[in-house]
């Protein structure tokens, strides 16, 4: 069984869309060039602010992926269309990686800026909870052998956990946090200079391509997993 899965993995990566993989790598190369070389340092933070170019897109997509995850779980609960279940399970891992990335890069940025690696303020704590929610969603589904039940319980967790998303988003506005409020919002001009917005948006596009590419690979994997579960239960 293990060997079969492993072979499937190799087949999957081979069958992944080569244009998407190329576009992702290309966007990251351009994005990193702009982030690390072709952009000015910050007037206070100096070069350590360059971490922002990966930290901010990671955090955005951590929240966005969870919203899609919770949304597909809602749709699955109501319609019981298995497609939504497959979508949710395809993107969970990528979302977890984005959350971990934003936590690690934020920690590296926090040390020179704030003077500490970690503080238990509302933004950081709610982001850590998001990471645990992703892990719980993934592990719950794997741990329960009755997959119908597993889907129900993990979907319920994902939906209840969605309450964390607005808490993360607005934590910096609702409570006093060490983390600064958002620099980019729809209602006002961004408090980031244009020369720093360019690398940020290229990196955002790169992260989006990464999300799509990996999710599509995962999508095929989940379909195979479903097929194997059906055959093994016969």
């Amino acid at each position, binding site marked *: 069984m293990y060997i079969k899965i492993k072979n499937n993995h190799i087949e999957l990566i081979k069958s992944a869309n080569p244009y998407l993989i190329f576009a992702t790598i290309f966007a990251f190369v351009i994005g990193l060039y702009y982030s690390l070389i072709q952009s000015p340092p*910050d007037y206070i*933070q100096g070069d350590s602010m360059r971490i922002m170019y990966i930290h901010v897109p990671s955090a955005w997509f951590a929240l966005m992926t969870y919203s899609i995850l919770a949304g597909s779980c809602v749709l699955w609960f109501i319609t019981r269309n298995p497609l939504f279940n497959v979508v949710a399970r395809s993107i969970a891992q990528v979302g977890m990686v984005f959350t971990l990335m934003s936590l690690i890069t934020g920690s590296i940025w926090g040390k020179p800026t704030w*003077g500490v690696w970690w503080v238990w303020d*509302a933004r950081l704590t709610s982001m850590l909870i998001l990471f645990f929610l992703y892990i719980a969603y993934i592990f719950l589904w794997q741990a329960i052998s009755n997959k119908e039940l597993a889907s129900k319980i993990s979907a319920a967790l994902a939906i209840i956990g969605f309450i964390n998303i607005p808490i993360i988003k607005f934590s910096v506005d609702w409570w*006093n946090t*060490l983390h600064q*409020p958002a620099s980019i919002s729809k209602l006002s001009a961004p408090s980031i200079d244009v*020369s720093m917005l360019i690398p940020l948006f290229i990196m955002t596009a790169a992260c989006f391509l990464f999300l799509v590419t990996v999710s599509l690979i995962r999508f095929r994997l989940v379909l195979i997993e479903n097929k194997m579960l059906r055959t093994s239960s016969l």
Partner: protein
Amino acid sequence: MTSLVKSRLIKFFLSLIIVLIAVLIIIFNLRENIIYFYGPTELIKNSDKQGQIMRLGGLVSVDSFQNETDSIFYFSITDGENEIDVKYEGILPNLFAEDKGVVVEGVYMNDGRFIANKVLAKHDENYMPPEVIETLKKSGKWQGE
């Protein structure tokens, strides 16, 4: 829409409302603990906070910074209305400066002073290259320090 889907939809929204109420109750009751730091005005208003370990945040008042030795520092933290004097012994973070955001952790003394044992620099949401700041300052459009 079949009746099955309809009943699921109703059950779903009912449970959603219940969870929402539960979370609101939790947040409402925990709001004291969620606040990471207090401003000077909030601390001065609540004299019951005296003698307790607290976090205080605000801007370092202009011209308030003094150092007794290389590791003992005095400064005031302001929120524009009130000020609290802070004594701190230790190493200051690199971004610590007057008129910049800071969060200190320590004891709010009974005499209204604050003895800090930890200083964290708070960064604002502005990101600018140094040249832009220079131009803004020259043209008089710079709103910051």
